[in-house]
């Protein structure tokens, strides 16, 4: 099915199942520990072996020699595979650093071997017996030091004459902000179990993008994609860290090939943070010029980040092209070559760090203008792409988000003068920020089966990383086929199923359900034909197909065997003619300890404008989870770089702090009741990343309101506040 015209009415609009706060259909398995994650597949008859990785202990250079003899002789060891043994390997098109390093070393903890043994304990012990001699090379590890003199990546995006307009602006802001390297820190480490049957490889793994993985595994191992099967029905969190093939898959496959046995491996937590990807640190310079009344005339956003050679920049400036009006604009990225581990996508890449900076800048600018920060944003709202006014937004309710949120949160009680509200030992402040994330759509396929029991089974390689895919797909099929949700079975995460959008870029929910919609449209047609109905005027309800006075049970269509159809939704040019984005307003209240500067979040509200909400329960969870991650980014998360040795020092979950229960208050989420007919037949958009975009700045602005201290370098830890606190010496 091609989606290239604004959607009119379709069966989803009935909202009997879609749009309802249905409990997760995979819930009973998850709460009882019976959902099977990657490392947990088990076959009593196979001779499973355990893998354990070995990582480079230098950041850059070469392996001169590896002594594997002690490891090979260690109890239980079956084999050791290094790059030398592995033979020539390719590299996945989505990988920057190679997944099995050697002799060249590109980053700290780059995998250089897998030890395979009879037990986990034996593999782990033997891994430490490998002696490696390195020749270290000088590397570059300090983004700030590399910043000087870096030119634009590609060319800057320019509208009008920014420099002149900025110079002539009545009120100006020119500030620089930084965000640190961050780790996804999902709870399930990367893990894979690989098994070869002749030339055919099956990998049970934990991955967000099944079809990408098949391609890149094949490319890395230099085998045909048709010989690769990837299975990943449950994923213990990803946030972008599992978008791509990582070392666990390749090491398991090589270990299994070398031993002729199934091999499984999980990346140890202290190894994972330097071995896999991270969200790169940024330095962002923002300049805003405005008229005295608050109208922005000039806005520029430049972002510096670093990556390995051939890596991408962290595009922290993209939202600034679209979020606010202004005739004269400049955005661009600058990329330094760094020899730290590979930087890559983490939840809302670009916008998450970009809005952490931009939305502080907006708060600062509002203060300079003597405007309320909400009014300032409202003044500069735009219903069209500011760089191309012929391109309207498909649907934009940012102003409504701000206004409704202000009302609900009690914004009017805010004292605009900072550091004026005290409650016991706490300095109290509230802050606001806009949230913005583009709505991406991806081609997505599904197969649906109707059997004689009247059960519809959906098969797609879509993944559920906690997002609720199982549930919203079941809701979609139930709505389309007129069945209760109990009559729908959903099977995900297997490359033998049709390729779907996968989970990333908050495109998954809308695109994958649209793919299921397309397949169900086809199934409805096929069923109608089999039953001798004119498919155009059929109603599917209560397990029946109805047309005029005639009705037939759905099961009748499958009386002579299962009805199986498959379709794929493809998206046309509506994204070119219309800018599709999602919007939010985030409100945060913090308390800052007047003595110690510890910041604790006390209240949070997000108001989201994101098209139709397919399931308010799971969507709300996406948003509160993103808000939680936003608190982490604002207040505690930072991969600390050792710029001498070139690695992230705090590489475990004790050193890299993410929010715990005690950090998070009750969270409120409001979804605006809306649909976006340009986005898909589902009229939905994504929320999973929107919920993060802007939260950090709302926290930062609340801290400023509480203390009068403007921190422009995340995370806002107490050391950045303590010497400037009221009453500090």
């Amino acid at each position, binding site marked *: 099915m091609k989606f290239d015209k604004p959607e009119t009415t379709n069966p989803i609009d009935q909202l009997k199942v879609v749009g309802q706060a249905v*409990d997760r259909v995979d*819930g*009973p*398995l*998850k*709460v*009882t*520990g*019976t*959902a*099977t994650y990657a*490392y*947990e*597949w*088990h*076959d*009593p008859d196979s*001779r499973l072996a355990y893998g354990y990785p070995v990582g480079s202990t230098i950041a850059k250079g070469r392996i001169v020699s590896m002594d594997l003899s002690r490891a090979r002789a*260690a*109890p*239980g060891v079956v084999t050791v595979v290094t790059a030398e043994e592995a033979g020539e390997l390719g590299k996945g098109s989505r990988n920057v650093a190679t997944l099995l390093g050697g002799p060249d070393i590109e980053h700290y903890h780059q995998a250089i071997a897998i030890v395979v043994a*009879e*037990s986990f*304990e*034996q593999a782990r*012990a033997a891994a430490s017996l490998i002696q490696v001699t390195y020749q270290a090379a000088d590397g570059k590890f300090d983004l700030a030091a590399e910043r000087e003199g870096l030119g634009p990546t590609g060319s800057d995006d320019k509208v009008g004459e920014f420099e002149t307009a900025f110079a002539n602006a009545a009120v100006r802001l020119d500030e620089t902000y930084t965000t640190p390297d961050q780790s996804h820190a999902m*709870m*399930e480490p990367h893990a894979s*179990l690989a*098994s070869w*049957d002749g030339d055919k490889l*099956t990998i*049970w793994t934990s991955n967000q993008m099944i079809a990408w993985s098949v391609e890149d595994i094949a490319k890395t191992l230099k085998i045909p994609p048709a010989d690769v099967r990837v299975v990943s*029905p*449950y994923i213990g*969190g990803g*946030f972008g860290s599992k978008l791509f093939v990582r070392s666990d898959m390749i090491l398991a496959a090589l270990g299994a090939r070398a031993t002729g046995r199934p091999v499984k491996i999980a990346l140890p*937590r202290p190894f994972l943070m330097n071995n896999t990807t991270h969200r790169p640190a940024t330095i962002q310079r923002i300049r805003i010029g405005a008229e005295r009344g608050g109208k922005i005339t000039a806005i520029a956003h430049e972002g510096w980040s670093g990556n390995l050679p051939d890596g991408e920049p962290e595009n922290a400036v993209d939202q600034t092209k679209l979020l606010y009006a202004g005739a004269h604009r400049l955005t661009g990225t600058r990329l330094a070559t760094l020899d730290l581990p590979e930087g890559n996508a983490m939840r809302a890449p670009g916008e998450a760090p970009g809005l952490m900076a931009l939305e502080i800048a907006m708060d600062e600018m509002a203060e300079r203008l003597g405007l309320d920060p909400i009014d300032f944003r409202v003044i500069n709202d735009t219903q069209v792409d500011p760089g191309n006014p012929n391109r309207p937004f498909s649907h934009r309710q940012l102003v409504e988000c701000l206004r409704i949120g202000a009302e609900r949160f009690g914004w009017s009680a805010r004292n605009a003068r900072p550091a004026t509200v005290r409650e016991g030992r706490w300095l109290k402040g509230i802050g606001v920020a806009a949230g913005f994330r583009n709505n991406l759509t991806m081609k997505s396929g599904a197969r649906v089966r109707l059997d004689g029991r009247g059960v519809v089974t959906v098969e797609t390689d879509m993944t559920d*990383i*906690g997002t*609720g895919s199982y549930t919203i797909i079941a809701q979609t099929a139930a709505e389309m086929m007129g069945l209760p949700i*109990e*009559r729908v*079975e*959903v*099977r995900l995460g*297997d490359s033998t199923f049709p390729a779907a959008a996968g989970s990333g870029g908050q495109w998954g929910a809308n695109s994958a359900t649209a793919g299921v919609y397309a397949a169900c449209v086809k199934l409805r047609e096929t069923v109608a034909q089999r039953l001798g109905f004119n498919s155009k005027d059929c109603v599917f309800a209560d397990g029946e197909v109805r047309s005029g006075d005639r009705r037939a049970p759905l099961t009748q269509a499958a009386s002579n065997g299962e009805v199986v159809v498959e379709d794929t939704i493809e998206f046309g040019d509506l994204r070119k003619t219309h800018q599709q984005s999602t919007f939010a307003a985030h409100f945060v209240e913090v308390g800052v300890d007047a003595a110690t500067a510890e910041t604790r979040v006390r209240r949070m509200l997000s108001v989201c404008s994101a098209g139709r909400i397919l399931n308010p329960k*799971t969507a709300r*969870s996406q948003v*509160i*989870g993103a808000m*939680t*991650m936003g608190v982490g980014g604002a207040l505690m998360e930072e991969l600390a770089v050792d710029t001498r040795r070139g690695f992230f020092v705090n590489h*475990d*979950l004790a050193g890299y702090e993410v*929010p*715990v*229960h*005690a950090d*998070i208050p009750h969270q409120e989420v409001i979804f605006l009741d809306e649909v976006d007919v340009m986005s898909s037949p589902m009229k939905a958009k994504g929320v999973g990343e929107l919920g993060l975009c802007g939260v950090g700045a709302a926290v930062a602005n609340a801290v400023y309101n509480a203390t009068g201290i403007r921190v422009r370098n995340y995370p806002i830890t107490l050391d950045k506040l303590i010497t400037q606190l009221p009453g500090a010496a």
Partner: protein
Amino acid sequence: MSVPHDFELNRRDLMVGGSTLAAMTAVPAAVKAQPNSTGGAALSNISLTVNGQAHALELDTRTTLLDALREHLHLTGSKKGCDHGQCGACTVLIDGRRVNSCLTLAIMNEGMEITTIEGLGAPDQLHPMQAAFIKHDGYQCGYCTPGQICSGVAVLGEIKAGIPSHVTPDLMQPVTASDEEIRERMSGNICRCGAYSNIVEAMTEVAGRQG
């Protein structure tokens, strides 16, 4: 509605999902099939009582309780998130107390009553805490969930027993199941999906029901 714990498997598929393993754990042969006579590493005969059932195992002495449960008894509900006591995903109950099963050796737990998430309830027979997590959507990816639930059950017990916490206002006064108490006590269970707000609601409901 069901989801693919019941993949149709042919022989080439090799693997079976966790939900079909309940019966298998009772079969010692599955355990003995683990290769372990490789010399060198010290092996120990260990008896563990898990969810009311006694198991005799021959294990590498280094085996943690978590790995004994997951790799040898195939009770994979207890999760390995960090293996270093920094996340809480491996939380189980030992003699009724919650413990990080990654930071204790299997051999140190002989003679104790170990309860895992599988022992609390099954999909068709949910423990009230499990049901409350579903109702309040107290999870997303599900990986920390068994640990959260084991911890949650124990936390309500700790509050009932009057064990104080960091946020208890007065050490000499009774403890209540306030939001603040629940949050502090649950802080050893990290949920990166950020379901905290919902987990507190789930636990509050169960606490209320317990009266």
